[in-house]
């Protein structure tokens, strides 16, 4: 799986949405499926998928799919 595949799988499983909806512009709380509860599910999916530990500020900053990619870049996960 490429990193993009992994990211899409994590988003799609955590938010329970179709992979086709996962585009860079998708933002936190812009759809009912991405609320504060599923956000924390998403964080743990990403952490186990990429085997990393995200800091508090990353959890708070992750306001869109694009932002998620930028944050993961800091952990040497490139897209």
């Amino acid at each position, binding site marked *: 799986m490429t990193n993009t595949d992994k990211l899409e799988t994590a988003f799609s499983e955590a938010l329970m949405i179709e992979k086709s909806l996962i585009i860079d512009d998708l933002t936190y*709380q812009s759809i009912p499926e991405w609320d504060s509860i599923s956000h924390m599910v998403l964080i743990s999916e990403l952490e186990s998928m990429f085997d990393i530990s995200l800091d*508090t500020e990353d959890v708070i900053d992750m306001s869109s799919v694009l932002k998620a990619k930028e944050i993961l870049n800091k952990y040497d996960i490139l897209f």
Partner: protein
Amino acid sequence: MNLGELINTHQFSLNSDEKNRFLLPLVKDLNQFHSEHCSDFNKVSEVVFNGKDNIESFDDLPFLPVSIFKNFDIKSINDADVFKVLTSSGTTGQQVSKIYLDRETASLQTLALSKIVSHVLGKARLPMLIVDSKAVFSNKSSYSARGAGILGLTVFGRDHTYILDENFEFNESILEEFLEKYDGQPFFIFGFTFMVWQYFYQSQLQKKYDLSKAILLHSGGWKKLIDISVDNDTFRQGLKEKFSLTSIYNFYGMVEQVGSIFIENSLGYLHCPNFADVIIRNPLDFSVQPIGEPGLIQVISALPKSYPGHSLLTEDIGVLMGEDDEPQGWKGKYFKILGRAKKAELRGCSDTFKTNFA
């Protein structure tokens, strides 16, 4: 200093002079903004406070009673910009407060809360034990204020583990497994104060557990515990004796000022962060009380932009315990809460507002 810079300062670092220099101008700007964008706030400000526009100190700021958010829909933004509406718990039969947030205010609240919590927990998200049941979220569209409080704190932890089962029964095996998994590592416990006491401290345990690596944050008020004669000292002493748990932080906050929380300092009192302040007012004439004299707690915060919640008179009675002299070097005011104001004490306040603002 702008608001973002103020939130990002090392918390509890500003003394009285610095708060006047950096926090007061921001709160004055907010006050002006709400006067211009919220006609209800402007009316109160004009009628009750004689339209004060020469605000020279925090004491001069107009304040709204928190109950106003129960009776009126008050906001300083257009309907189209409403991003989220927070509601208070409220006991049965009571009206709930409605707080209107736009994206900016909501994200400032999250950022501010994270600055205070990470001040005591650190940057990394620790394994988190929650003294509650997942059942508080069973109705997702309208979970309780308790559920919302728990969710707000889950950001700061990982592997969120609820130690009460679906029927709110304490489950010792969950605690045991969690402690085995994170043996010797620091972890984070969160719960509402009375839940921690009744469902955790008072639970019957088969074994003895060492929670000396844990950091406990708890909130929600003491009312239920005062009724059974448990105060902060008893609470701390009990947890220390039973679990060797000593890193304990109570905090005080409200739905009307989410993000502005007052957290327990080394003296056991609640401490104002850099972006918030408190004033204690005499319930009879609303004059400002000095250190040591109890009164109604007025909370001031630089965060509320979408609704006029920057200066609120609560229904809690408290007393200022000191300012700028906390032994570990935390600057700013600190106070303690004595309890809820009696109806009679609040009547004077609400009469003043009703007479002038009907």
